């Protein structure tokens, strides 16, 4: 090597090679990174990984950075490092980091996504108990939603009940009364059930010639307006079954047997008929045509009269940017399901700690801090799990949607009817079973003329095989 070193050309080559290698191997710093450990080595760095749910939008990041900065300024011994990853890459990025370089804290993340990491999440119960964190301001049912196999894997931060968004202009045009805003209220002398919704939705479904879906002259090949949709959930059969059938589970009480409860069969049949027989809910091709392709924001097209969506949909509705087709809307309660109960399937966001963390106590201290930050929940567009923070949340929405006056009381009511067990709850062999449920949903949404009950039987067999494989 001495000879190489003595030759200027070779020295240059070696230097250039080393520099290039260093440049190539240098890890990219987090754009929002905070200072690392101090020289004394006493500072613990806790990485908070954002992107698995909401929280990665550019307008949300400054608030997250501010929350992190406030914590870091007030703590000498713990520093939060914020890592924000685009939502489309976040899951894969985390998967590839898990073997060698896992973050400490992940979230905000929903119930379903947390199941993917169920085995890798820290049980927070001992830390909640030892730290004395007060969870009394949060409904116990919400706390229980994050109790998986006896492990408390998260503290609820944000909740998103489901209800019906309705386009008042389309109701006015058809001369129909608006749907109920109170649970138990009737609609034009009829109990507010899914059967009533069907009748109403068919009147609100109109073809290109102006015939509604109850008319003999109605042409299902040229529908111009639909009565009902459940946008964003169309292929998730567990979600669809819950919306139209009430609470249930694909896992029997023994934890290993696959099933499809009767109320779920009824609920799924309702939706399948809505798409293919009664034609008041859009097919996949129709939804993509009116909803901007894969985004499928169908309600915003102005061609959907009623849409069962969650509280988080306020993110993407008038007054959104552009020229909205929906200018006058409100929200209504969900009807009674075939099981005789009202069910508002619930989405919720939390933050979890990966059990690979080397500093669980410090990570929990950070988590406890983050879970109390109303600013975060507000910027994520979520209803706070802490009841005392909700008035401010709705006041912010009122300001945003003015001059429209939205009856947020509907949302608060619906929070009282969460699905239990959750439609996103654990299943054995979770990822494959979840994928199979969505494959099944895609089949239903794109294929007319199926014997649905026979298809459900076959699907239960598929699930059982997957459950057995995962046991």
């Amino acid at each position, binding site marked *: 090597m001495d000879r190489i070193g003595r030759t200027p050309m070779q020295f240059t080559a070696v230097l250039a090679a080393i520099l290039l290698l260093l440049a190539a191997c240098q890890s990219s710093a987090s754009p929002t990174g905070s200072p690392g450990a101090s020289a004394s080595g006493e500072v613990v760095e806790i990485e908070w990984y954002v992107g698995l749910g909401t929280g990665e939008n550019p307008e949300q990041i400054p608030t997250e950075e501010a929350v992190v900065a406030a914590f870091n300024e007030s703590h000498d011994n713990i520093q939060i490092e914020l890592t924000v990853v685009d939502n489309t890459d976040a899951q894969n990025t985390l998967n590839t980091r898990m073997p060698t370089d896992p973050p400490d804290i992940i979230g905000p993340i929903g119930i379903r996504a947390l199941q993917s990491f169920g*085995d890798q999440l820290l049980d927070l119960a001992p830390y909640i108990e030892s730290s004395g964190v007060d969870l009394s301001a949060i409904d116990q049912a919400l706390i229980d939603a994050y109790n998986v196999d006896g492990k408390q894997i998260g503290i609820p931060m944000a909740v998103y009940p489901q209800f019906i968004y309705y386009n008042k202009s389309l109701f006015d045009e058809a001369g129909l009364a608006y749907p109920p805003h109170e649970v138990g209220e009737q609609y034009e002398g009829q109990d507010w059930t899914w059967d009533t919704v069907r009748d109403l939705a068919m009147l609100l479904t109109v073809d290109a010639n102006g015939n509604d879906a109850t008319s003999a002259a109605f042409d299902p090949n040229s529908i111009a307006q639909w009565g009902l949709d459940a946008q964003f959930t169309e292929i998730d059969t567990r979600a669809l079954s819950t919306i139209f059938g009430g609470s249930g589970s694909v896992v029997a009480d023994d934890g290993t047997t696959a099933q499809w409860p009767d109320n779920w069969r009824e609920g799924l049949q309702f939706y399948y008929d809505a798409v293919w027989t009664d034609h008041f809910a859009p097919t996949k091709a129709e939804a*993509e045509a009116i909803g901007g392709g894969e985004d499928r924001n169908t309600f915003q097209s102005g061609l959907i009269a009623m849409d069962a969506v969650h509280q988080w949909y306020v993110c993407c509705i008038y007054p959104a940017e552009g020229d909205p087709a929906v200018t006058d809307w409100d929200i209504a309660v969900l009807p009674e399901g075939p099981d005789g109960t009202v069910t508002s399937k619930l989405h919720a966001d939390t933050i979890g700690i990966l059990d690979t963390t080397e500093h669980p106590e410090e990570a929990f201290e950070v988590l406890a801090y983050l879970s109390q930050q109303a600013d975060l929940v507000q910027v994520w567009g979520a209803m706070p799990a802490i009841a005392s923070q909700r008035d401010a949340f709705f006041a912010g929405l009122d300001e945003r949607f003015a001059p429209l006056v939205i009856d947020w009381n509907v949302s608060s009511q619906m929070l009282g009817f969460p699905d239990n067990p959750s439609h996103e709850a654990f299943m054995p062999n979770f990822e494959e079973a979840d994928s199979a449920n969505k494959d099944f949903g895609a089949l239903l949404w794109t294929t007319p003329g199926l014997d649905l009950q026979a298809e459900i039987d076959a699907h239960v067999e598929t699930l059982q095989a997957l459950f057995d494989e995962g046991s």
Partner: protein
Amino acid sequence: MTAISESGTPRAVAARPPSGRFSSLETREALTGLVFISPWIVGFVLFSALPMLASLVLSFTDFDPRAVDEIHFIGLDNYVQMLHDPILIQSLGVTVRFALLVVPTTLAFALGVALLVNSTLLAGRNVFRTLFYMPMQIPIVASTVIWIGVLNAGNGWLNQGLAVFGIQGPDWLNSTTWVHPALVLMGLWGIGNMMLIFLAGLQSVPTELYDAARVDGAGRWGTFRNVTLPLISPVLFYNLIIALIATFQYFTQAYVISNGRGDPARETLFFNLNLFREGFAFFHMGYASALAWLLFVIVLALTFVLFRTAGSWVYSGADR
């Protein structure tokens, strides 16, 4: 360094030292070159060779990236599992059926376009060449999203165009019958590279051969079949190999149109998409590694077979 000549007189041998000597000019130059390209060598070893080797090792394990500590050596279990995996068989079937459709179609279309833009009868040939190549500049994801709109059953341009002629177009991307033709259509839009290679091949055909064919009374088809096609057969062979490999690696378009699930009814669950799902959706990284090696072997075998057949149809020089 000296040596003893036959006459016993010492002579210098520095002009050509024994091979392997570190001090020779050639060796030092070679070493310098190696040092200059060492970033690439190191990059190749670190980011290509070692990962390949790692995937081979992983293919004999049950590696789950979420539980690194629980990795086990399971011998050939992953390879045995392939024999009983109906999804794998299905994905292979999808890929082969698609290859049979897309490879000849794109080859023929690209050759046709190359003939067109090579024709002296076409005014503004350079403009057309640019236009046909231009889609190559658009990222695949972006172009696929555009095509999803174009192929929409309700308001897509294609079906609206067909409606003008009284034809009700199919639900291209949601129909098990039409989704492959739809993907072929999308593929035809991106034949720019293949066209360019064909064009280069066409321009290398000696014009005197065309003159001779004309003198012999050959028509357009006869000239094409007996002169052009044999002379561009090496280019055709190259494009065939590349197209076949690309088809077996088909992923992005299928991922985008089906949100990574292979809809409708797994008709777009191509081999690579299935591999991706096994590795990154279901976390069966060991099995996914085995699938990657199966793909490698399949592509290698196909390429080998094509090379073996090349002697009978690919023009290889003036001796033929």
